[in-house]
């Protein structure tokens, strides 16, 4: 009994920290409609800046509080800079581009933090009062955690007063409901957005600094907190502050008890709750359907590629086939990587472009395919072709089961659910050390003897990946592909002409999952080993970048994007140790300059003056 109570208190303390971060995220989303990936970076910066401040201040409680508030003020300032330089320019961009641009910021901040504070975890020296605990029902409970428990409701109360009792708060609430109307009433939106963003950033920073006494400042905290915060915000309902509070409690307690109930699989429990909530309430516990306020440009018509482009494709293919006769082993490995990337990107494009289902966890299918192939070889001792065949079958089947939850959602909710699922798959791969080797991965996955020559394996990879990519392309031109596009263009009309949009979207999701799984299976054999990093957020983002870099609105886009991105990535890795910063900066610039991607921009230039 006592144990349960203490576990509950631990859960409540975790819920408070989670609420601080999620509150900022949800308020920012409510007003600006930007899903801010960089919120995790602000949390990370809050922790590092807090460490730098607190280690220089006297250690009394009073100074501690001041230090925390100063860290909040500093992140608010950084948020202000971020909003005015970047976010302000992308408020009208599609959601995914916003997510991507803010992910670019995440990458940049990671390298900046590494340069300033170094690679080690920075823990705060804990004075006596921070280590003190109180006796509750005969058990010791940290005093600081009790304080944390109080902070959550206190912040909720303060925010509630701010939003209901001030003119500024009223404007924020009005903008959350209908920002176009607020603008029409003559309110200066820029000030409103900037101040809201600064407030959210301050909350994230305070949350980060408050994480110091129980943990440390480290370079992984941005992505680990943002996943939890996304779950909280989505479960609570995007833009809903009380929802975020409720969801924080739910997730915090779930994690505290989950560790006891099913150790090592807490994230599965969290995911299950999230999936159930979203199936019952597609807009979260207290969320409402978002008013459609952005006037998005209609998608351009998909037409057959001009003959010149077809010839360029044939020429590129001829070069790709002939390449092994000329290039060395390193270039050959890059080319194999590119072939895999093309299929990986094309499979994401399939569901995201024509299907209108943006996934932030596409690496899950890639990883499932890779692990399937690797384990088929190592644990079941199956020959290579069997492993490569099993990869898409297993990935597609899992996608079919999981897709049942996904296809009911749309937009950000869908992206977040896929992200959460990918995190689960990652956690399973990471934690099931017995089967997957955990962080050490599965090693020694070598191709069959007949394909041992890198050139032969390259031709095999090229044939499989390109074949599957062309097959995807063919499917997009089939009645099914048209129907998929129809459900995206107008669900209303699709239903009125008898299309079953749930079934169509589910089928597309499974096909995309299977193809990503196939690319993972090839990758497993080409690299000879499989690691949890195959499933990490970063790899899902790679796929998104390839698609968006190439252009989501064209069929050639993902292919061009995959080639360009893989080339760019490898070049950056060779050229600089600050490759994260460089890549992040490039993403940000691309989003700002070429929102249609390479192929999309080329198409626009090509069509200029050719079509009414």
């Amino acid at each position, binding site marked *: 009994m006592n144990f349960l109570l203490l576990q509950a208190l631990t859960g409540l303390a975790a819920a408070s920290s989670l609420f601080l971060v999620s509150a900022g995220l949800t308020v920012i989303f409510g007003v600006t409609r930007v899903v801010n990936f960089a919120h995790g970076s602000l949390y990370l910066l809050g922790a590092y800046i807090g460490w730098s401040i607190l280690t220089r201040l006297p250690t009394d409680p009073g100074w501690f509080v001041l230090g925390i508030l100063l860290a909040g003020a500093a992140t608010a300032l950084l948020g202000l800079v971020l909003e005015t330089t970047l976010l302000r320019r992308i408020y009208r961009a599609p959601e995914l581009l916003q997510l991507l641009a803010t992910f670019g910021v995440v990458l940049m901040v990671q390298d900046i933090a590494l340069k300033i504070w170094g690679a080690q975890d920075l823990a705060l020296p804990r004075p006596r009062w921070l280590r003190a605990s109180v006796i509750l029902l005969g058990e010791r409970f940290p005093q600081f955690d009790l304080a944390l428990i109080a902070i959550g409701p206190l912040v909720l109360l303060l925010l509630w007063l701010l939003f209901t009792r001030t003119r500024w708060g009223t404007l924020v609430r009005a903008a959350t409901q209908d920002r176009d109307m607020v603008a029409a009433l003559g309110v200066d939106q820029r000030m409103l957005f900037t101040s809201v963003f600064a407030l959210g950033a301050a909350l994230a920073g305070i949350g980060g600094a408050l994480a110091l006494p129980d943990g440390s400042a480290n370079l992984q905290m941005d992505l680990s907190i943002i996943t939890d915060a996304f779950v909280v915000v989505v479960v609570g309902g995007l833009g809903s502050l009380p929802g975020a509070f409720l969801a924080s409690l739910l997730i915090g307690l779930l994690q505290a008890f989950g560790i006891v109930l099913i150790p090592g699989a807490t994230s599965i429990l969290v995911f299950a709750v999230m999936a159930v909530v979203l199936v019952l309430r597609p807009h979260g516990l207290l969320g409402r359907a978002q008013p459609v306020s952005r006037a998005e440009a*209609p*998608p*351009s*018509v*998909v037409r057959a590629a001009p003959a010149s482009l077809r010839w360029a494709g044939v020429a590129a293919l001829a070069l790709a086939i002939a390449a092994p006769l000329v290039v060395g082993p390193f270039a050959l490995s890059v080319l194999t990587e590119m072939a895999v990337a093309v299929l990986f990107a094309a499979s994401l494009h399939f569901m995201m472009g024509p299907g209108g289902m943006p996934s932030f966890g596409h690496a899950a299918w890639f990883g499932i395919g890779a692990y399937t192939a690797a384990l088929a070889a190592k644990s079941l001792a199956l020959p290579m072709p069997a492993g490569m065949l099993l990869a898409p079958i297993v990935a597609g089947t899992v996608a079919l089961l999981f897709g049942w939850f996904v296809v009911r959602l749309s937009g950000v909710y869908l992206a977040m659910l896929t992200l959460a699922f990918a995190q689960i798959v990652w956690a399973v791969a990471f934690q099931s050390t017995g089967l997957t080797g955990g962080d050490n991965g599965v090693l020694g996955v070598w191709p069959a003897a007949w394909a041992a020559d890198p050139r032969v394996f390259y031709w095999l990879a090229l044939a499989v990946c390109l074949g599957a990519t062309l097959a995807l392309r*063919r*499917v997009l*031109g*089939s*009645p*099914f*592909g*048209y*129907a998929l*596009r*129809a459900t*995206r*263009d*107008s669900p*209303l*009309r*699709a*239903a*009125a*002409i*008898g*299309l*079953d949009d749930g079934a*169509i979207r589910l089928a597309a999701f499974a096909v995309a999952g299977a193809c990503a799984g196939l690319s993972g299976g090839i990758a497993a054999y080409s690299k000879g080993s499989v690691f949890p990093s195959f499933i990490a957020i970063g790899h899902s983002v790679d796929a998104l970048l390839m698609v968006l870099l190439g252009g989501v609105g064209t069929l050639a886009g993902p292919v061009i994007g995959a080639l360009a991105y893989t080339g760019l990535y490898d070049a950056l890795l060779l050229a600089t140790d600050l490759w994260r910063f460089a890549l992040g900066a490039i993403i940000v610039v691309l989003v700002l300059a070429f929102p249609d991607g390479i192929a999309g921009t080329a198409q626009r230039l090509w069509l200029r003056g050719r079509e*009414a």
Partner: protein
Amino acid sequence: MNALVVSGLQKRFGGVMAVAGISFAVAPGEMLALIGPNGAGKSTCFNMLNGQLRPDGGRVMLAGRDITGLAPRRVFRLGVGRTFQITATFASMTVRENVQMALLSHAGEIRRFWRPAAAMHAAEAQALLARVGMDGQAHRAAGVLAYGDLKRLELAVALAHAPRLLLMDEPTAGMAPAERVALMRLARDLATTGGLAVLFTEHDMDVVFDVADRILVLARGELIAEGDAAAIRADTRVRQVYLGSGVTTGGH
């Protein structure tokens, strides 16, 4: 047998009775107009007929079969075509592809994953477009059409599966007067020669009185009048609803 029989149809949104238990029928070959001021419940009524909204009470019978609460895609399969008040078309497709989409769905060919769709039912689609006068624009993007052309495209799409009942929600909004007459004459023709039952809402009274066999007047969710053009013109309650009687402002 009547093509459509509606009895006691009811829908409530919170405290508002949007449609308060209305009953009517449409015969094959008949054009029935549903008119009424804004907020009378016309679109709500339409949305219940094709399954977009689930009624709180009442029945919808299509050619003797109960279709109450069936999903829109099932209602389509039973032979109901509809156009929307705010047009809904596939913007990433050409005009002809929009019609082909409906033809493919009707033919049950959506599960085909390999054969290119572009050539399937192309001639049939072209013929349907010719009927609504859109054949000249077959290869334009649906997303760039003028509003009146979108309405005509919607009609071609709604006719693709040779429905027995056509539901048109404000089919001529956004059209020039001459276009309106032409479009409604086309519907009239389909009804008279093909035995199609047509139920439509419309704000343009000239159009209504010109083509409708019978007119239903809806106000605040209730049917207040029913009859041919002459009867509706003469009805005092209809005049009150449209022109106001002064009762609502105190009755002096």
